[in-house]
Protein backbone atom coordinates (compact mmCIF):
# COMPACT_ATOMS: atom_id res chain seq x y z
CA UNK A 1 0.00 0.00 0.00
CA UNK A 2 1.17 3.55 -0.44
CA UNK A 3 -0.23 6.71 0.96
CA UNK A 4 -3.36 5.18 2.44
CA UNK A 5 -2.12 5.37 6.00
CA UNK A 6 -1.08 8.02 8.47
CA UNK A 7 2.22 8.56 10.24
CA UNK A 8 0.46 7.36 13.40
CA UNK A 9 -0.22 4.00 11.75
CA UNK A 10 3.30 3.76 10.43
CA UNK A 11 4.67 4.40 13.95
CA UNK A 12 2.33 1.90 15.58
CA UNK A 13 3.25 -0.77 13.05
CA UNK A 14 6.97 -0.06 13.41
CA UNK A 15 6.71 -0.36 17.18
CA UNK A 16 4.54 -3.50 17.04
CA UNK A 17 6.95 -5.34 14.73
CA UNK A 18 9.70 -4.96 17.31
CA UNK A 19 7.69 -6.77 19.99
CA UNK A 20 8.65 -10.45 19.98
CA UNK A 21 6.22 -13.17 20.96
CA UNK A 22 7.66 -13.36 24.48
CA UNK A 23 6.83 -9.72 25.17
CA UNK A 24 5.11 -9.23 28.52
CA UNK A 25 4.26 -5.55 28.52
CA UNK A 26 2.26 -3.05 30.52
CA UNK A 27 1.24 0.52 29.95
CA UNK A 28 0.80 3.67 31.98
CA UNK A 29 -0.98 6.95 31.32
CA UNK A 30 -1.24 8.65 27.92
CA UNK A 31 0.18 5.71 26.00
CA UNK A 32 -2.10 5.31 23.01
CA UNK A 33 0.55 4.31 20.48
CA UNK A 34 2.05 1.61 22.71
CA UNK A 35 -1.40 0.23 23.51
CA UNK A 36 -2.21 0.13 19.78
CA UNK A 37 1.13 -1.59 19.16
CA UNK A 38 0.59 -4.24 21.85
CA UNK A 39 -2.86 -5.04 20.49
CA UNK A 40 -1.62 -5.06 16.90
CA UNK A 41 1.33 -7.33 17.68
CA UNK A 42 -0.97 -9.70 19.58
CA UNK A 43 -3.25 -9.94 16.54
CA UNK A 44 -0.44 -10.54 14.08
CA UNK A 45 2.98 -12.06 14.74
CA UNK A 46 2.94 -12.27 18.56
CA UNK A 47 -0.16 -14.20 19.66
CA UNK A 48 1.31 -14.98 23.09
CA UNK A 49 2.21 -11.38 23.90
CA UNK A 50 0.99 -10.47 27.39
CA UNK A 51 -0.32 -6.97 27.93
CA UNK A 52 -1.35 -5.61 31.32
CA UNK A 53 -3.60 -2.62 30.64
CA UNK A 54 -3.03 0.34 32.97
CA UNK A 55 -0.72 -1.97 34.95
CA UNK A 56 -3.99 -3.36 36.36
CA UNK A 57 -5.86 -5.56 33.87
CA UNK A 58 -4.15 -8.66 32.48
CA UNK A 59 -4.75 -9.60 28.86
CA UNK A 60 -7.97 -7.68 28.18
CA UNK A 61 -9.91 -7.44 24.92
CA UNK A 62 -11.45 -3.97 24.89
CA UNK A 63 -13.83 -3.34 22.01
CA UNK A 64 -12.04 -0.07 21.32
CA UNK A 65 -9.43 2.14 22.93
CA UNK A 66 -11.11 4.68 25.23
CA UNK A 67 -10.05 8.25 25.88
CA UNK A 68 -7.59 7.33 28.62
CA UNK A 69 -5.10 4.47 28.75
CA UNK A 70 -5.83 4.29 32.50
CA UNK A 71 -9.56 3.89 31.94
CA UNK A 72 -11.45 0.83 33.10
CA UNK A 73 -12.99 0.73 29.63
CA UNK A 74 -9.64 -0.68 28.55
CA UNK A 75 -10.01 -3.65 30.91
CA UNK A 76 -12.88 -5.53 29.28
CA UNK A 77 -12.42 -9.26 29.28
CA UNK A 78 -9.28 -9.25 31.42
CA UNK A 79 -8.24 -12.51 33.06
CA UNK A 80 -7.11 -10.67 36.19
CA UNK A 81 -7.53 -7.28 37.81
CA UNK A 82 -4.72 -6.39 40.17
CA UNK A 83 -5.84 -4.58 43.29
CA UNK A 84 -2.77 -2.43 43.64
CA UNK A 85 0.12 -1.25 41.55
CA UNK A 86 2.51 -2.32 44.28
CA UNK A 87 1.50 -5.97 43.97
CA UNK A 88 2.07 -5.80 40.26
CA UNK A 89 5.43 -4.10 40.75
CA UNK A 90 7.05 -7.35 41.82
CA UNK A 91 6.52 -8.68 38.32
CA UNK A 92 8.23 -5.66 36.84
CA UNK A 93 11.24 -6.36 39.04
CA UNK A 94 11.48 -10.14 38.70
CA UNK A 95 11.33 -10.20 34.91
CA UNK A 96 7.89 -11.77 34.59
CA UNK A 97 6.93 -8.49 32.92
CA UNK A 98 9.70 -7.38 30.61
CA UNK A 99 8.59 -4.52 28.37
CA UNK A 100 7.53 -0.89 28.80
CA UNK A 101 7.24 2.10 26.45
CA UNK A 102 7.71 5.74 27.31
CA UNK A 103 8.50 9.14 25.92
CA UNK A 104 9.53 12.47 27.37
CA UNK A 105 9.90 16.19 26.85
CA UNK A 106 13.62 15.72 26.19
CA UNK A 107 15.55 12.64 25.05
CA UNK A 108 19.32 12.47 24.72
CA UNK A 109 21.56 10.37 22.50
CA UNK A 110 21.80 7.57 25.10
CA UNK A 111 18.02 7.34 25.43
CA UNK A 112 17.87 9.07 28.80
CA UNK A 113 14.69 11.05 29.25
CA UNK A 114 13.61 14.28 30.93
CA UNK A 115 10.02 14.78 31.94
CA UNK A 116 10.68 16.93 35.01
CA UNK A 117 11.71 20.51 34.15
CA UNK A 118 12.84 22.71 31.31
CA UNK A 119 15.47 24.99 32.79
CA UNK A 120 17.09 24.70 36.21
CA UNK A 121 15.30 22.39 38.68
CA UNK A 122 14.87 25.03 41.40
CA UNK A 123 13.71 27.80 39.05
CA UNK A 124 12.28 26.01 36.06
CA UNK A 125 11.19 27.68 32.88
CA UNK A 126 8.60 24.92 32.53
CA UNK A 127 7.63 22.62 35.35
CA UNK A 128 6.77 19.34 33.64
CA UNK A 129 4.71 16.51 35.19
CA UNK A 130 7.67 14.63 36.71
CA UNK A 131 9.37 11.30 36.26
CA UNK A 132 6.47 9.27 37.67
CA UNK A 133 6.69 5.55 37.06
CA UNK A 134 8.96 6.02 34.07
CA UNK A 135 11.76 7.02 36.43
CA UNK A 136 11.40 3.62 38.13
CA UNK A 137 10.62 1.34 35.22
CA UNK A 138 13.43 2.71 33.08
CA UNK A 139 15.68 1.07 35.70
CA UNK A 140 13.61 -1.99 36.50
CA UNK A 141 12.33 -3.28 33.15
CA UNK A 142 14.83 -4.81 30.72
CA UNK A 143 13.12 -3.95 27.42
CA UNK A 144 12.37 -0.28 26.99
CA UNK A 145 10.88 1.24 23.85
CA UNK A 146 10.90 4.99 23.34
CA UNK A 147 8.53 6.80 21.09
CA UNK A 148 8.14 10.43 20.10
CA UNK A 149 5.77 12.17 17.75
CA UNK A 150 7.81 15.38 17.89
CA UNK A 151 11.22 14.65 16.44
CA UNK A 152 12.78 18.12 16.76
CA UNK A 153 16.02 19.54 18.15
CA UNK A 154 14.09 20.74 21.21
CA UNK A 155 13.13 17.18 22.11
CA UNK A 156 16.21 15.27 20.90
CA UNK A 157 18.85 17.23 22.78
CA UNK A 158 22.56 16.94 23.42
CA UNK A 159 22.14 17.57 27.16
CA UNK A 160 19.04 16.99 29.24
CA UNK A 161 17.96 19.69 31.68
CA UNK A 162 17.20 16.84 34.10
CA UNK A 163 17.58 13.10 33.82
CA UNK A 164 14.23 11.75 35.02
CA UNK A 165 14.52 8.35 33.38
CA UNK A 166 17.53 6.16 32.82
CA UNK A 167 18.39 5.06 29.32
CA UNK A 168 21.89 3.81 28.63
CA UNK A 169 23.08 6.45 31.11
CA UNK A 170 26.53 7.79 30.30
CA UNK A 171 27.11 5.07 27.72
CA UNK A 172 28.33 1.46 27.53
CA UNK A 173 28.71 -0.24 30.91
CA UNK A 174 26.79 2.32 32.95
CA UNK A 175 23.68 0.21 33.46
CA UNK A 176 25.79 -2.88 34.07
CA UNK A 177 27.74 -1.05 36.81
CA UNK A 178 24.46 -0.19 38.53
CA UNK A 179 23.11 -3.71 38.09
CA UNK A 180 20.32 -2.64 35.77
CA UNK A 181 19.25 -5.25 33.22
CA UNK A 182 18.64 -4.48 29.55
CA UNK A 183 17.94 -0.92 28.50
CA UNK A 184 16.31 1.01 25.66
CA UNK A 185 16.03 -1.08 22.52
CA UNK A 186 14.47 1.24 20.03
CA UNK A 187 13.24 4.76 19.37
CA UNK A 188 10.32 5.20 17.01
CA UNK A 189 9.66 8.81 16.00
CA UNK A 190 7.59 10.59 13.39
CA UNK A 191 10.71 10.65 11.17
CA UNK A 192 12.62 7.44 11.72
CA UNK A 193 13.52 4.37 13.73
CA UNK A 194 16.73 4.36 15.78
CA UNK A 195 18.49 1.80 17.94
CA UNK A 196 21.48 1.73 20.32
CA UNK A 197 24.45 -0.38 19.14
CA UNK A 198 26.39 -1.97 22.03
CA UNK A 199 29.68 -0.24 21.18
CA UNK A 200 28.35 3.27 21.71
CA UNK A 201 24.85 2.96 23.16
CA UNK A 202 24.11 6.14 21.22
CA UNK A 203 21.21 6.45 18.82
CA UNK A 204 21.87 4.98 15.40
CA UNK A 205 19.59 5.50 12.47
CA UNK A 206 18.05 2.20 11.52
CA UNK A 207 15.49 3.37 9.00
CA UNK A 208 13.92 6.58 7.78
CA UNK A 209 10.22 6.77 7.16
CA UNK A 210 9.01 7.06 3.55
CA UNK A 211 9.69 10.58 2.26
CA UNK A 212 12.20 11.40 4.99
CA UNK A 213 15.92 11.77 4.27
CA UNK A 214 18.89 11.14 6.50
CA UNK A 215 19.58 14.85 6.38
CA UNK A 216 16.04 15.57 7.55
CA UNK A 217 16.72 13.42 10.62
CA UNK A 218 20.08 15.10 11.22
CA UNK A 219 18.48 18.52 11.02
CA UNK A 220 15.75 17.50 13.44
CA UNK A 221 18.13 16.07 16.02
CA UNK A 222 20.09 18.12 18.56
CA UNK A 223 22.90 15.59 18.77
CA UNK A 224 24.98 13.69 16.23
CA UNK A 225 22.99 10.68 15.07
CA UNK A 226 25.10 7.68 14.19
CA UNK A 227 24.64 6.62 10.56
CA UNK A 228 26.17 3.31 9.43
CA UNK A 229 26.18 2.93 5.65
CA UNK A 230 22.99 3.00 3.67
CA UNK A 231 19.88 3.61 5.70
CA UNK A 232 16.82 1.68 4.56
CA UNK A 233 13.29 3.02 4.45
CA UNK A 234 10.92 2.00 7.22
CA UNK A 235 8.49 -0.52 5.77
CA UNK A 236 5.01 0.86 5.30
CA UNK A 237 2.26 -0.69 7.34
CA UNK A 238 0.40 -3.38 5.48
CA UNK A 239 -3.26 -3.04 4.62
CA UNK A 240 -4.05 -5.65 7.27
CA UNK A 241 -2.09 -3.73 9.91
CA UNK A 242 -3.85 -0.49 9.08
CA UNK A 243 -7.24 -2.19 9.22
CA UNK A 244 -6.50 -3.71 12.60
CA UNK A 245 -5.26 -0.40 14.01
CA UNK A 246 -8.38 1.40 12.82
CA UNK A 247 -10.62 -1.30 14.25
CA UNK A 248 -8.78 -1.25 17.59
CA UNK A 249 -8.86 2.53 17.77
CA UNK A 250 -11.82 3.71 15.71
CA UNK A 251 -11.96 7.11 17.42
CA UNK A 252 -8.30 7.88 16.60
CA UNK A 253 -7.08 8.31 20.15
CA UNK A 254 -3.55 7.53 18.92
CA UNK A 255 -3.63 10.69 16.82
CA UNK A 256 -3.93 12.81 19.94
CA UNK A 257 -0.26 12.18 20.42
CA UNK A 258 0.68 13.78 17.10
CA UNK A 259 1.95 17.35 17.28
CA UNK A 260 -0.99 19.66 16.80
CA UNK A 261 -3.23 16.60 16.50
Amino acid at each position, binding site marked *: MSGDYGIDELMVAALAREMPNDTRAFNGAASFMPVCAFMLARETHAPDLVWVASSIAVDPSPPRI*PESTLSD*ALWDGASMLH*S*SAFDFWWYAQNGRLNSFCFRGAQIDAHGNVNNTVIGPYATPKVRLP*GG*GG*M*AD*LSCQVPRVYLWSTTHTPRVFVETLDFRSGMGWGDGPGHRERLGLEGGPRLVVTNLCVMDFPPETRRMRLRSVHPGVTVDDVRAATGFEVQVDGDVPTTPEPTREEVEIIRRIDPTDMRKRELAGG
Partner: protein
Amino acid sequence: MSKLETMDEAAGRVVDGSTVAIGGLLMNGAPMEFCRALARRGAKDLTVVAIVAGPSVDWLVAGGCVRRAIIGLVSMEGFGLAPHFRRAAERGEIDVEEWSEHTIICGLQAAAARLPFMPTKAGLGTDMPGLHPERTEVVEHPRGTYLACGPIRPDVAVVHVHEADVNGNCRVLPKLVWMDSELVKAADTVVATTERVVPERTFRAAPERTTYPGFTVDAVVEAPLGAYPTSLFPWHGYDGAFVTEYLAACRDPETFAPFWRDRVMDPEDGPALVDANGGAATLLRIRSAGGTA
Protein backbone atom coordinates in the same frame (compact mmCIF):
# COMPACT_ATOMS: atom_id res chain seq x y z
CA MET B 1 -17.46 4.70 69.22
CA SER B 2 -18.58 5.54 65.69
CA LYS B 3 -15.81 6.89 63.49
CA LEU B 4 -18.21 8.97 61.39
CA GLU B 5 -17.23 12.61 61.12
CA THR B 6 -18.36 15.56 59.06
CA MET B 7 -16.08 16.57 56.20
CA ASP B 8 -15.10 19.70 58.09
CA GLU B 9 -14.23 17.77 61.25
CA ALA B 10 -12.08 15.37 59.28
CA ALA B 11 -10.38 18.18 57.35
CA GLY B 12 -9.66 19.78 60.71
CA ARG B 13 -7.42 16.84 61.53
CA VAL B 14 -4.95 18.29 59.03
CA VAL B 15 -3.02 20.86 61.05
CA ASP B 16 -1.35 23.78 59.30
CA GLY B 17 2.24 22.90 58.52
CA SER B 18 1.69 19.16 58.67
CA THR B 19 2.14 16.44 56.05
CA VAL B 20 -0.96 15.13 54.30
CA ALA B 21 -1.01 12.28 51.78
CA ILE B 22 -3.70 12.37 49.10
CA GLY B 23 -4.91 9.22 47.34
CA GLY B 24 -5.93 8.62 43.77
CA LEU B 25 -3.98 8.44 40.53
CA LEU B 26 -4.01 11.23 37.96
CA MET B 27 -7.67 11.68 36.91
CA ASN B 28 -8.85 8.74 38.99
CA GLY B 29 -10.14 8.05 42.46
CA ALA B 30 -8.88 11.14 44.29
CA PRO B 31 -10.59 12.46 47.46
CA MET B 32 -11.60 15.71 45.76
CA GLU B 33 -14.26 16.67 48.32
CA PHE B 34 -11.63 16.49 51.03
CA CYS B 35 -9.30 18.71 48.98
CA ARG B 36 -12.11 21.26 48.63
CA ALA B 37 -12.73 21.09 52.38
CA LEU B 38 -9.06 21.80 53.09
CA ALA B 39 -9.07 24.76 50.73
CA ARG B 40 -12.33 26.05 52.20
CA ARG B 41 -10.88 25.92 55.72
CA GLY B 42 -7.84 27.85 54.52
CA ALA B 43 -5.37 25.11 55.42
CA LYS B 44 -1.81 26.46 55.15
CA ASP B 45 1.79 25.40 54.69
CA LEU B 46 1.00 21.78 54.05
CA THR B 47 3.46 19.25 52.76
CA VAL B 48 1.43 17.21 50.31
CA VAL B 49 2.45 13.64 49.48
CA ALA B 50 0.89 12.44 46.23
CA ILE B 51 2.33 9.54 44.27
CA VAL B 52 0.76 10.34 40.90
CA ALA B 53 -1.68 13.23 41.11
CA GLY B 54 -3.72 15.60 39.00
CA PRO B 55 -6.65 17.81 39.96
CA SER B 56 -6.23 17.02 43.68
CA VAL B 57 -2.85 18.68 44.00
CA ASP B 58 -3.80 21.42 41.56
CA TRP B 59 -6.79 22.42 43.70
CA LEU B 60 -4.77 22.36 46.91
CA VAL B 61 -2.19 24.62 45.29
CA ALA B 62 -4.89 26.87 43.85
CA GLY B 63 -6.38 27.09 47.34
CA GLY B 64 -3.09 28.29 48.78
CA CYS B 65 -2.72 25.25 51.05
CA VAL B 66 0.63 23.92 49.87
CA ARG B 67 4.17 24.80 50.85
CA ARG B 68 5.87 21.63 49.66
CA ALA B 69 4.86 18.78 47.37
CA ILE B 70 6.45 15.34 47.53
CA ILE B 71 5.36 13.87 44.22
CA GLY B 72 6.11 11.32 41.58
CA LEU B 73 4.12 13.11 38.91
CA VAL B 74 1.41 15.77 38.67
CA SER B 75 -0.51 16.35 35.46
CA MET B 76 -3.95 16.42 33.90
CA GLU B 77 -3.02 13.32 31.89
CA GLY B 78 -3.97 13.83 28.23
CA PHE B 79 -5.40 17.28 28.94
CA GLY B 80 -2.13 19.00 29.73
CA LEU B 81 -0.05 20.19 32.64
CA ALA B 82 -1.62 20.94 36.02
CA PRO B 83 -1.76 24.75 35.73
CA HIS B 84 -1.59 25.90 39.35
CA PHE B 85 0.97 23.32 40.33
CA ARG B 86 3.06 24.28 37.34
CA ARG B 87 2.82 28.01 37.89
CA ALA B 88 3.55 27.83 41.61
CA ALA B 89 6.58 25.66 40.96
CA GLU B 90 7.88 27.96 38.27
CA ARG B 91 7.43 31.01 40.48
CA GLY B 92 9.03 29.30 43.46
CA GLU B 93 5.84 29.60 45.50
CA ILE B 94 6.00 25.92 46.39
CA ASP B 95 8.90 23.54 46.82
CA VAL B 96 8.56 20.50 44.62
CA GLU B 97 10.35 17.51 46.08
CA GLU B 98 10.27 15.10 43.18
CA TRP B 99 10.70 11.39 43.90
CA SER B 100 9.01 8.79 41.66
CA GLU B 101 6.20 6.27 42.02
CA HIS B 102 8.20 3.38 43.35
CA THR B 103 10.60 5.42 45.46
CA ILE B 104 7.69 7.19 47.22
CA ILE B 105 6.14 3.78 47.85
CA CYS B 106 9.48 2.64 49.30
CA GLY B 107 9.61 5.73 51.51
CA LEU B 108 6.06 5.11 52.73
CA GLN B 109 6.88 1.48 53.43
CA ALA B 110 10.01 2.45 55.35
CA ALA B 111 7.81 4.65 57.50
CA ALA B 112 5.20 1.91 57.94
CA ALA B 113 7.83 -0.63 58.99
CA ARG B 114 9.74 1.87 61.18
CA LEU B 115 12.86 1.18 59.12
CA PRO B 116 15.63 3.64 58.23
CA PHE B 117 14.98 3.05 54.52
CA MET B 118 13.68 0.64 51.93
CA PRO B 119 15.96 -0.30 49.04
CA THR B 120 15.09 -0.25 45.36
CA LYS B 121 16.80 -0.24 42.01
CA ALA B 122 14.38 2.46 40.84
CA GLY B 123 15.91 5.86 40.20
CA LEU B 124 19.50 4.61 39.89
CA GLY B 125 21.45 6.61 37.35
CA THR B 126 18.91 9.45 37.28
CA ASP B 127 19.19 12.96 38.72
CA MET B 128 16.33 12.35 41.16
CA PRO B 129 18.28 11.02 44.17
CA GLY B 130 20.47 14.14 44.04
CA LEU B 131 17.45 16.34 44.75
CA HIS B 132 17.24 15.06 48.34
CA PRO B 133 20.48 13.23 49.12
CA GLU B 134 19.68 13.23 52.81
CA ARG B 135 16.62 11.05 52.09
CA THR B 136 17.54 9.03 49.01
CA GLU B 137 21.07 7.71 49.03
CA VAL B 138 22.77 5.60 46.35
CA VAL B 139 24.61 2.79 48.14
CA GLU B 140 27.09 0.31 46.70
CA HIS B 141 26.77 -3.09 48.31
CA PRO B 142 28.91 -6.14 47.52
CA ARG B 143 25.81 -7.81 46.08
CA GLY B 144 24.71 -4.77 44.07
CA THR B 145 23.94 -1.07 44.08
CA TYR B 146 20.64 0.18 45.47
CA LEU B 147 18.84 3.39 46.24
CA ALA B 148 18.00 3.68 49.96
CA CYS B 149 14.68 5.52 50.28
CA GLY B 150 14.26 7.14 53.68
CA PRO B 151 10.91 7.20 55.48
CA ILE B 152 8.00 9.33 54.30
CA ARG B 153 5.54 9.37 57.19
CA PRO B 154 2.40 11.41 56.58
CA ASP B 155 0.59 12.85 59.56
CA VAL B 156 -2.71 12.25 57.79
CA ALA B 157 -3.61 10.19 54.72
CA VAL B 158 -6.91 10.65 52.89
CA VAL B 159 -8.38 8.10 50.52
CA HIS B 160 -11.76 7.87 48.82
CA VAL B 161 -13.60 4.52 48.87
CA HIS B 162 -16.86 3.10 47.61
CA GLU B 163 -18.27 1.83 50.91
CA ALA B 164 -17.41 2.14 54.58
CA ASP B 165 -19.06 1.42 57.92
CA VAL B 166 -18.99 3.28 61.23
CA ASN B 167 -16.12 1.06 62.43
CA GLY B 168 -13.86 2.22 59.64
CA ASN B 169 -14.06 -0.90 57.50
CA CYS B 170 -13.69 0.13 53.87
CA ARG B 171 -14.42 -1.53 50.57
CA VAL B 172 -12.98 -0.42 47.27
CA LEU B 173 -14.45 -1.94 44.08
CA PRO B 174 -13.15 -4.21 42.60
CA LYS B 175 -10.39 -3.90 45.21
CA LEU B 176 -8.70 -1.44 42.85
CA VAL B 177 -6.75 0.83 45.17
CA TRP B 178 -4.26 2.22 42.67
CA MET B 179 -1.55 2.99 45.24
CA ASP B 180 -3.75 4.21 48.10
CA SER B 181 -3.00 1.22 50.31
CA GLU B 182 0.57 2.44 50.63
CA LEU B 183 -0.65 5.72 52.10
CA VAL B 184 -2.93 3.89 54.52
CA LYS B 185 -0.01 1.81 55.82
CA ALA B 186 2.27 4.73 56.44
CA ALA B 187 0.16 7.55 57.88
CA ASP B 188 -0.38 8.19 61.58
CA THR B 189 -4.01 9.15 60.96
CA VAL B 190 -6.13 7.74 58.15
CA VAL B 191 -9.30 9.41 56.86
CA ALA B 192 -11.57 7.56 54.44
CA THR B 193 -14.15 9.53 52.52
CA THR B 194 -16.80 7.21 51.17
CA GLU B 195 -19.53 7.21 48.53
CA ARG B 196 -21.85 5.67 51.08
CA VAL B 197 -21.97 4.39 54.62
CA VAL B 198 -23.19 0.82 54.79
CA PRO B 199 -24.11 -1.42 57.73
CA GLU B 200 -21.40 -3.46 59.43
CA ARG B 201 -23.16 -6.61 58.21
CA THR B 202 -22.29 -5.69 54.63
CA PHE B 203 -18.66 -6.35 55.45
CA ARG B 204 -19.30 -9.49 57.47
CA ALA B 205 -21.35 -10.92 54.61
CA ALA B 206 -18.36 -10.82 52.22
CA PRO B 207 -15.23 -10.38 54.35
CA GLU B 208 -12.86 -11.30 51.51
CA ARG B 209 -13.94 -8.09 49.78
CA THR B 210 -12.92 -5.74 52.59
CA THR B 211 -10.04 -3.52 51.50
CA TYR B 212 -8.98 -1.70 54.69
CA PRO B 213 -9.83 -3.20 58.08
CA GLY B 214 -11.50 -0.87 60.54
CA PHE B 215 -8.53 -0.75 62.88
CA THR B 216 -6.47 1.03 60.21
CA VAL B 217 -8.96 3.85 59.65
CA ASP B 218 -9.48 6.67 62.13
CA ALA B 219 -12.28 8.68 60.56
CA VAL B 220 -15.01 7.99 58.01
CA VAL B 221 -16.76 10.79 56.12
CA GLU B 222 -19.81 10.21 53.96
CA ALA B 223 -19.07 12.00 50.70
CA PRO B 224 -21.19 10.90 47.75
CA LEU B 225 -19.61 11.86 44.45
CA GLY B 226 -16.59 12.66 46.56
CA ALA B 227 -14.10 11.89 43.80
CA TYR B 228 -15.74 14.12 41.17
CA PRO B 229 -14.40 15.39 38.77
CA THR B 230 -11.95 12.46 38.92
CA SER B 231 -13.26 8.98 38.20
CA LEU B 232 -14.47 6.35 40.58
CA PHE B 233 -14.35 3.13 38.58
CA PRO B 234 -16.52 1.17 38.05
CA TRP B 235 -19.21 3.67 39.12
CA HIS B 236 -18.22 6.66 36.99
CA GLY B 237 -15.49 8.00 34.76
CA TYR B 238 -13.75 11.34 35.10
CA ASP B 239 -15.35 14.48 33.68
CA GLY B 240 -13.14 15.40 30.75
CA ALA B 241 -15.42 18.24 29.72
CA PHE B 242 -15.02 19.82 33.14
CA VAL B 243 -11.25 19.47 32.98
CA THR B 244 -11.14 21.11 29.56
CA GLU B 245 -13.19 24.06 30.86
CA TYR B 246 -11.07 24.23 33.99
CA LEU B 247 -7.86 24.42 31.98
CA ALA B 248 -9.33 27.11 29.75
CA ALA B 249 -10.45 29.14 32.78
CA CYS B 250 -7.00 28.82 34.35
CA ARG B 251 -5.38 30.75 31.52
CA ASP B 252 -6.59 34.08 32.82
CA PRO B 253 -7.06 35.23 36.45
CA GLU B 254 -10.20 37.08 35.41
CA THR B 255 -11.92 34.00 34.12
CA PHE B 256 -10.45 31.80 36.81
CA ALA B 257 -11.81 33.69 39.84
CA PRO B 258 -15.50 33.16 39.04
CA PHE B 259 -14.87 29.61 37.80
CA TRP B 260 -13.04 28.72 40.99
CA ARG B 261 -15.80 30.25 43.10
CA ASP B 262 -18.88 28.99 41.27
CA ARG B 263 -17.71 25.78 39.66
CA VAL B 264 -15.26 24.50 42.29
CA MET B 265 -15.34 26.03 45.76
CA ASP B 266 -18.83 27.24 46.60
CA PRO B 267 -20.92 24.11 46.05
CA GLU B 268 -21.27 22.60 49.49
CA ASP B 269 -20.89 18.92 48.68
CA GLY B 270 -20.37 16.44 45.86
CA PRO B 271 -23.93 16.50 44.51
CA ALA B 272 -23.94 20.32 44.63
CA LEU B 273 -20.62 20.37 42.79
CA VAL B 274 -22.02 18.16 40.06
CA ASP B 275 -25.13 20.36 39.89
CA ALA B 276 -22.87 23.38 39.39
CA ASN B 277 -21.26 21.51 36.51
CA GLY B 278 -24.19 20.20 34.51
CA GLY B 279 -26.19 18.16 37.01
CA ALA B 280 -27.93 15.03 35.86
CA ALA B 281 -26.67 15.39 32.30
CA THR B 282 -23.11 15.32 33.60
CA LEU B 283 -23.76 12.22 35.66
CA LEU B 284 -25.25 10.55 32.63
CA ARG B 285 -22.29 11.55 30.52
CA ILE B 286 -19.70 10.16 32.91
CA ARG B 287 -21.61 7.21 34.27
CA SER B 288 -20.31 4.78 31.69
CA ALA B 289 -16.87 3.45 32.37
CA GLY B 290 -14.05 5.48 30.91
CA GLY B 291 -15.61 8.87 31.34
CA THR B 292 -16.28 9.39 27.66
CA ALA B 293 -16.66 13.14 27.77
